[in-house]
């Protein structure tokens, strides 16, 4: 049987990292093509700050989420410590998660994976007079576009073909490809009609404030300040079921005010750019195989979408699982082709 032809649809963080992992675990045994309508800097991933602070999926066991986060953190930690770090856009950042409500300040499942996690001291909390508790830790940040561009470069080095193409229906790929990996994020709603997938609109500001070296995150998840390589991301909003991609000026002012109340020096921030992304939200990430068939023809599908607010934190872990599912598909194809020879 000829080498299996794999298409990965979607060139956001999940598509790129999944395609890379497939290439890494299946060297020389299949051809991989990445198809996407959008590429960096126009993906949802480009809007996100890329902080490794996990979001909890209600529908996935905690030990699985912890494993995904651990794999992702370990992978990126190694890159951050190498000469590649600046090109890949991966860097360590320290800071604080602060709470107004003591009951919210529980120790999260990921506290032993990030570095130096501990409660904030009274002296540290003095900087935040409206908050009574906090947690200090050091984590990683993946700056986009650099990280996505670096992934694209790694894909090309691994012989992955990359094409701009809008896929309207997965079945349209059945004659050219044997296995399709669906990493279309929010696009899966229309592409495969998944009603469990819904957008949570996030608006952010990217500002020039290079003196901000620490992150600050309100435990409510709505207000955050994440310093990146060339800009600081200020956020944000969580608007369920809103598909609106255009920025809202009232929201911009509200985000700016909320962030300035946590970090007053941001009043002096320059070059404010507003971005909007639709978090592809789901109670759990859809990581599963599916077989599409019409007439006698079949198309094997691996889904890897629905990461919501937590894509960066788990991307390597879910890419790993998706790559295993692709290996299962390859084995199934080889099994059925040898049966066909009998």
């Amino acid at each position: 049987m000829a080498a299996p032809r794999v298409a990965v649809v979607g060139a956001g963080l999940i598509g790129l990292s999944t395609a890379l992992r497939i290439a890494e675990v299946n060297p020389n045994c299949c051809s991989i093509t990445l198809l996407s309508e959008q590429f960096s800097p126009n993906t949802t991933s480009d809007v996100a700050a890329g902080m490794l602070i996990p979001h909890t999926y209600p529908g996935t066991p905690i030990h699985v989420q912890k494993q995904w986060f651990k794999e992702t953190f370990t992978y990126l930690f190694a890159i951050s410590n190498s000469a590649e770090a600046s090109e890949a856009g991966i860097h360590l950042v320290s800071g604080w998660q602060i709470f107004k409500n003591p009951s919210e300040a529980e120790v999260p499942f990921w506290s032993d994976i990030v570095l130096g996690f501990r409660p904030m001291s009274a002296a540290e909390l003095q900087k935040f007079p409206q908050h009574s508790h906090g947690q200090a830790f050091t984590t990683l940040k993946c700056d986009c576009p650099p990280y996505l561009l670096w992934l694209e470069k790694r894909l090309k080095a691994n012989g992955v073909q990359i094409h701009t193409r809008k896929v309207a229906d997965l079945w349209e790929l059945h004659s050219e490809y044997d296995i399709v990996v669906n990493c279309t994020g929010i696009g899966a709603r229309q592409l495969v009609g998944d009603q469990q997938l819904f957008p949570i609109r996030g608006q952010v500001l990217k500002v020039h404030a290079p003196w901000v070296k620490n992150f600050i995150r309100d435990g409510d998840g709505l207000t955050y300040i994440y310093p990146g390589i060339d800009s600081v991301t200020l956020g944000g909003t969580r608007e369920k079921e809103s598909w609106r991609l255009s920025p809202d000026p009232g929201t911009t002012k509200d985000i700016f005010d909320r962030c300035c109340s946590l970090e007053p020096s941001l009043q002096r921030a320059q070059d404010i750019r507003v971005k909007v992304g639709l978090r592809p939200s789901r109670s759990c990430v859809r990581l599963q195989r599916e077989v599409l068939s019409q007439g006698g023809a079949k198309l094997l599908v691996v889904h890897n979408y629905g990461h919501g607010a937590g894509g960066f934190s788990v991307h390597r872990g879910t890419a790993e699982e998706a790559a295993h599912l692709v290996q299962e598909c390859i084995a199934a194809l080889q099994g059925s082709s040898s049966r066909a020879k009998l």
Partner: protein
Amino acid sequence: MRIAVIGAGVIGLSTALCIHDRFHALVPQLQLEVYADRFTPHTTSDGAAGLWQPYLSDHGNLQETLWNKETFEHLLGYLNSPEAKEMGLFLISGYNLFKQPVPDPSWKNIVLGFRNLTPKELELFPGYSYGWFNTALMLECRSYLPWLTNRLAQRGVKFFHRKVESFEEMFSQGIDVVINCTGIRAGELQPDPALQPARGQIIKVLAPWVKHFIITHDMESGIYSSPYVIPGSEFTVLGGIYQQGNWNEENSAQDHKSIWERCCRLLPMLQKAEIVQEWSGLRPARPTVRLERESIGHGRSRTEVIHNYGHGGFGITIHWGCAMAAARLLGNILQEKQSQSRL
């Protein structure tokens, strides 16, 4: 009452401001003047990265530890104010690295969130087996000195751009008290063998992905002779040179190589950083800071000098505590002059 501050580095300007704050309302005839042959950005202070961090041990000098603490707390008070950015003041977290366990520093309870490094964190720094993490402050003098200058100018303090050759020169012009903040060149006004240069050289690079300071320590070769990386608001400073007795203010190619190689070994990603500038400066090192009064002359022509120099590599760290101590000494002088005039 004419007071002349000699020196316009961080010590001179902050002492002048502290004095003005404290006395301008109490002593209406107070006239404050600043004399210097070098102003920002050409002072020693301008070359420093600006990290608030004392040396590892205060050698029992509790006075200096107290001045450090006063400085930190004074700056913390400005952190959430709209002035902070203009002052060049911001919080920064980072690492101090050692090759063996060391006692906690005198400043562990002054900085924020001081703790030991975890084994996982030490994996980032092969060759180092022990260390600290804490959050401290950066005060960039290329912003802070102009900020101090503006505040002083707004209050009518006069600036004179010239080299003062002697204390006598000042007194013969009618200056009543001289505040000697001349740093490394204090010896030119009055010989002081205890004051020696501790030459430093730094490389400024563009490395905006570095968000932490990293200071390594070699307990045998001494403070700041081991590589360090300090990210500022625009540039990242690479250093690790501390040469006692070297008066050379020219950049050395050998020191450049040493800094570059050792910092890139510490942080491999720096290999891709673009070099923007190189600078050498002389830390005004002294076993202790000279902060004291001295009377010059006798009887009616007795004049007063307040010395405030010899802050080594911790001038920014200690500056406000010293400024307040110098202001207190001036307060004593003013009180004495007042009671004298009543006699």
